[in-house]
């Protein structure tokens, strides 16, 4: 299937960061007018018919989420856009904000109308400084042009914490606190931001909303595959010839994305593994890549669509080192609230280090599984599970390689792995408050 620019439509020919150019291709036009002519119920009905599934990771239908908002509540209703893109492998939201910020803003205005909200917050990760500047300029330009109709959009910058991509941690952070997830229930549509009904959606989800209104929900629902309509921007990275973002209809075969769009495996190497949804999901072996890229098809083979972000790994990589580097990330980003995640990720790192340096026994492989099993389902949010899913898949699918470490008393790659010696932020001590006087 060829690339199909829908979210990114017009970006090749126009500078769509400018309001005039976005309007010239129909932006803030029919779609917005059509939405505003509808009642809240009608618009939510339209969004439900479109069956747009959330592009942030969980794939929950966006229209259904809107229908759960407690619109009878006397409190304000909030729309929050999750632009805290931090999943290793994902860089699609960044491109949307940098190249089509007005499509995101138009989506905000439509989605806000659906849930009768006047207050929109876009929570953008702190590291995205250039994208923040582009988005803020676009918000100001659209507001000054009188397009907001009583709605206010605040772009709020994060300050460096992966966990804030988790929706309740994001809300805590947006409220000015440490970004630690909340127990659920209550769910955000009932009690979210400032304890008021709150809709939270990913950047790409909201930026697709104007497309639905333009095409009509019934037509939109016919695109992609029936269970997952529309296009997705797939981020592909790692050992491929042409890494980058490719917008493709959902249901595009994974093999086609890797071997045609991305040009296949780089440097004449062999494919070893694909981590299909960002680093948090179970990896696939080369014989598993004849799968359509959509939520249900990936779910059926035991992994996740996630953030539509494929990390391609070639045969130079040691899977124990891959597991170790991945787990160091989740350990570093664990917020510390739930003991199984806070402590368990550290244990996982210690066990993986002992496997890599050859001091582990076969019993340690079982212990690694056991620690993982004691994180799964025992934590408030998915971060702990994100640490376990990939490592469990590496351990089970590439078990021979783990066993070889134990039997040979060290790494069978003998220093030649592509991840050899890779430094993780948790290995350095840049963030210790040395020299800082304790505050009372």
């Amino acid at each position: 299937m060829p690339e199909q620019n829908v979210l990114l439509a017009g970006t090749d020919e126009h500078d769509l960061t400018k309001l005039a150019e976005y309007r010239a291709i129909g932006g803030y036009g029919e779609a917005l007018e059509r939405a505003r002519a509808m009642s809240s119920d009608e618009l939510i009905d339209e969004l439900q018919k479109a069956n747009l599934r959330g592009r942030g990771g969980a794939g929950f239908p966006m229209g259904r989420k809107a229908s759960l908002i407690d619109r009878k509540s006397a409190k304000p209703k909030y729309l929050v856009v999750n632009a805290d893109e931090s999943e290793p492998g994902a860089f699609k939201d960044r491109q949307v904000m940098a190249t089509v910020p007005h499509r995101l803003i138009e989506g905000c205005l439509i989605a806000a109308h659906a849930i009768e909200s006047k207050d929109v917050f876009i929570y953008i990760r702190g590291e995205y400084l250039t994208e923040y500047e582009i988005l803020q300029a676009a918000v100001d330009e659209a507001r000054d042009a009188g397009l907001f109709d009583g709605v206010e959009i605040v772009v709020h910058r994060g300050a460096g914490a992966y966990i804030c991509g988790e929706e309740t941690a994001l809300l805590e952070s947006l409220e000015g606190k440490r970004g630690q997830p909340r127990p659920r229930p209550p769910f955000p549509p009932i009690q979210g931001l400032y304890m008021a009904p709150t809709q939270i959606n990913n950047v790409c989800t909201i930026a697709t909303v104007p497309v639905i209104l333009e095409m009509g929900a019934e037509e939109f629902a016919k695109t992609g595959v029936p269970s997952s309509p529309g296009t997705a921007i797939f981020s592909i990275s790692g050992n491929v010839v042409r890494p980058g973002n490719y917008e493709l209809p959902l249901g595009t075969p994974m093999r086609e994305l890797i071997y045609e769009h991305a040009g296949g495996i780089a440097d004449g190497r062999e494919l070893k593994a694909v981590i299909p949804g960002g680093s948090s999901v179970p990896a696939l072996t080369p014989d598993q890549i004849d799968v359509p890229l959509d939520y249900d098809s990936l779910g059926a083979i035991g992994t996740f669509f996630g953030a539509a972000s494929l990390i391609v790994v070639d045969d130079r990589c040691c899977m124990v080192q891959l597991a170790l580097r991945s787990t160091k990330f989740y350990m570093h980003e664990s917020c510390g609230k739930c003991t199984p995640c806070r402590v368990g990720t550290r244990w996982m790192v210690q066990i993986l280090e002992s496997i890599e340096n050859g001091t582990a026994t076969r019993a340690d492989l079982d212990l690694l599984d056991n620690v993982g099993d004691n994180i799964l389902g025992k934590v408030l949010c998915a971060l702990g599970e994100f640490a376990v899913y990939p490592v469990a898949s590496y351990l089970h699918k590439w078990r021979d390689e783990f066993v070889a470490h134990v039997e040979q008393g060290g790494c069978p790659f003998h220093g030649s792995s592509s991840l050899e010696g890779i430094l993780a932020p948790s290995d350095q001590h840049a963030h210790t408050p040395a020299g800082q006087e304790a505050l009372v």
Partner: protein
Amino acid sequence: MSTFYDDVQKIRERYPEGSRSATLPALRLAQEKHGWLSRQALEETAEALDVTPAFCYAVASFYDMFHLEPAGRHTIEICTNLPCALCGAQKVVEAFEDALGIKAGETTEDGEVTLKAVECLGGCGYATVVAVDHRYRHHVTPETVTEIVEGLGDA
């Protein structure tokens, strides 16, 4: 000339009354003013937000982008997460360490440059990604490191 206190009040107006949502923007502003979040910076922030310094410290210590110790005038942050790592990020780390004469995590003697390995910056398709004073540089290789280090003086 507006003061830090006034600037923070303007930020607070964007959010509902009584909320603490201005905390992160205020801490960022304080860090820009002081270079890092010293005791004085945290006390000024607390005063402007009408909260305790301990609250500000608790929040600041949660987030990687806040410095709780003096940082260099420039920051170089190298992504070493999986996609960049698979494409040779460690060689880029070592090239920066050699060029600056410090280890990742350290600041040069003269207080000019802080070098750090960081988690995924969201530029995985353009490995290796390096944020130089928070502006992304794509496709960085050991060969382009010298040019980046020499270019720091221009900022």
